[in-house]
């Protein structure tokens, strides 16, 4: 049976992608941020997952405003990165696992989570930056990838509570798959940032640190917040942090913290990294 080896949270902002392309990891501005990923990479090498389920939001590459699914699952054998107009380097394609994806889709829908299915899905920086953060040092992506896109772009977006519920259903979906696969879940996005309006530049360290503690010990705190509350505290783009709850919902109520890292600013953003394992793994 497939099993979840753990969950990781990470920011996915384009500036990180550019920094990796330009090899700025060792520069004073970036060093502390990137150094904090070395323990994550070491953990991934140790647990050696077969599949990564990447929870992210599309920023207007695959989905235009004519058609915005609240939740969408990649159900393809391959996912391509492409020009999204931001000048980012296009990275190598990702191998999918269509049979596993369709199993997840069926299981989610049986559990009343009516997710959209995509047989073609371009993946943007929200997906690609986390993959590169973890595995750019390798000659090829060492895992199959399954993109799970959450609408955080055009409101109404799903509530934090709904993301947490999706995570719980995702766990059942993964653990009911008959193949012996090790699965890691990436909850990407956040933390606090607001790119737009006169309030642009918002970074809320207090709220970010409280959110990290909540995701570890008390997911109910974040899951209980309204979209407006999260926007007020974390910014219009910081609302992406609801996607961490998809990852968190897929783990036990009690988790062990393998790694906890926070840095700010990176570009306009607070960046939080967690590696969590089930307490009874």
């Amino acid at each position, binding site marked *: 049976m497939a099993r979840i080896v753990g969950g990781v949270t990470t920011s996915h902002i384009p*500036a990180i992608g550019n920094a990796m392309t330009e090899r700025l990891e060792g520069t004073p501005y970036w060093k*502390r941020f990137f*150094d*904090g990923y070395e*323990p994550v990479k070491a953990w991934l090498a140790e647990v050696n997952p077969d599949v990564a389920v990447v929870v992210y939001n599309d*920023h*207007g*590459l695959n989905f*235009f*405003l004519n058609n915005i699914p609240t939740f969408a699952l990649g159900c393809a054998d391959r996912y391509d990165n*492409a*020009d*999204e*107009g*931001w*000048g980012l380097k296009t990275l190598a394609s990702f191998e999918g696992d269509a049979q596993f994806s369709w199993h997840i889709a069926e299981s989610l829908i049986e559990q009343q989570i009516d997710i959209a299915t995509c047989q073609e899905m371009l993946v943007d920086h929200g997906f690609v930056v986390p993959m590169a953060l973890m595995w750019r040092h390798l000659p090829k992506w060492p895992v199959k990838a399954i993109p799970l896109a959450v609408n955080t*772009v*055009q*409101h*109404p977006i799903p509530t934090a509570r709904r993301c947490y519920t999706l995570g719980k259903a995702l766990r059942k979906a993964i653990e009911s798959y008959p193949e012996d696969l090790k699965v890691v879940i990436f909850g990407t996005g956040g933390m606090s940032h*607001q*790119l*737009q*309006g*006169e*309030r*642009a*530049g918002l*970074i809320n*360290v207090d709220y970010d*640190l409280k959110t990290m503690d909540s995701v570890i010990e008390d997911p109910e705190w974040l899951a209980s917040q*309204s*979209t*407006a*509350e999260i*926007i*007020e505290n974390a910014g*219009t*783009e910081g609302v992406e942090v609801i996607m961490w709850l998809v990852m968190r919902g897929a783990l036990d109520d009690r988790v062990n*913290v393998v*790694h*906890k*890292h*926070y*840095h*700010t*600013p990176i*570009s*306009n953003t*607070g960046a939080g*990294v967690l590696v969590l394992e089930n307490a009874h793994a």
Partner: protein
Amino acid sequence: MAWRKHEYDEIPGTYVFDGKTAHRAYGLNKLLFSFNNEANRAEFARDKAAYADKYGLTPEQKKALLEDDFLTLLRLGANIYYLAKLAVPRGFSVQDAGAAFQGITTEEFKAALMAKGQGLVERLERRGGYWNG
């Protein structure tokens, strides 16, 4: 017929991209989305006004587009991620855009961001449990 009111409408300096905004700025965002394609970016660069007309922009939207007036574009309904497809290829960073939204210089905007990280390492040490190099 009415647009629903939201708690987030009251947050100052914040333009939440919801149905009301997406509806009135559909053409503008469709134009911005087209910049995923290099050929479209080049076509826009050759004749911006004609490109705006092709997507049926309102006179207000067109004026703001031609003047790189990001705050007005935002107020007229541009989605920030889509607006970046206009700004970034034309040499504006997200910090330039943020500074323009606030009416300050990019240097001032960046300095305010850097200030957010001051004392962070000591603070995380006091809090405990964080990786710190």
